[in-house]
């Protein structure tokens, strides 16, 4: 395979693999948050804020993978 082909495959693989775990993690965060909100509807705003905060942390990891893919593609 030529280097260009391998490079394209690498870009796609980096992004694909880098999105597995963050997607799973965000799903788990969301499900636990909904469970907690269902048990205690009064605390819903607090839980929601915390959920968005933690989701941002997790999403940052997926963004790291995206940045690596972008650097491979454009630099």
């Amino acid at each position: 395979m030529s280097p260009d082909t391998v490079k394209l495959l690498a870009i796609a693989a980096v992004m694909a693999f880098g999105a597995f775990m963050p997607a799973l993690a965000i799903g788990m965060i969301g499900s636990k948050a909904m469970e907690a909100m269902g048990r205690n509807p009064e605390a819903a705003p607090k839980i929601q804020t915390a959920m968005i905060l933690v989701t941002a942390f997790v999403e940052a990891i997926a963004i790291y993978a995206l940045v690596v893919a972008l650097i491979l593609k454009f630099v």
Partner: protein
Amino acid sequence: MIEISLKAEELFSIGSFPVTNSFLVAVLAFVFLALVGWRFKSGFALIPGAFQNFVEMVVEALLKLMDSVLQDRHKSERYLPLIATIFLFIMISNWMGLLPGVGSIGLREIQDGKESFVPLLRAPAADLNFTLALAIITVFAVNLFGTLTLGFRKHFGKFFTLKNPIYTFVGLLEFISELAKMISFSFRLFGNVFAGEVLLIIIGALVPYFVPLPFLALEIFVGFVQAFIFSMLTIVFIAIATAKEGH
């Protein structure tokens, strides 16, 4: 061929300082916010009109957000300038990056023998310099507030201590984690905004009519959420750094 550049393109230079297209939009966002602040100050009345009401609403919302984490109105008022600047500057510059003309109006230039398209305007957060500068300022400010509140010895004693070999190691890890915070802050904002830009360019090139609408709505939401997250994380780190008791 769709041209997407990771770096912000330089338009001209003032002396040896290169002025990029994202720098231009950042200056525009700054001028906009400065005008809003000036208008608020000069038209200040005891009975607020609509504009003053709106600005006070935004400030009140930010103070309430800070109260929920810091638990102290006095502390919130002390750190409001930094938090409000981070939040408003990032949100306004993200939203300005969505206006029609940003990224599409530009010049055809010939660089290295190749003809390329250089946009005149670009979202500021799509330039790593902007986000890295904000991240460095934020981490420095958090440590500065910690030092001002707790004293130099107490604050840096969290990182460099000889009391206990475990604490020494953990302290060094915490110090490296401060550097990691800079990277994480900058890349989170940069990745979100740049990926959004690339998404809008690709969607616009594929189906120009109606289909970009939900993606533009997503980008408006992402612009707000990323500003909120940046400021929220800063508030949390300030709360941790200025906590009076031991851990």
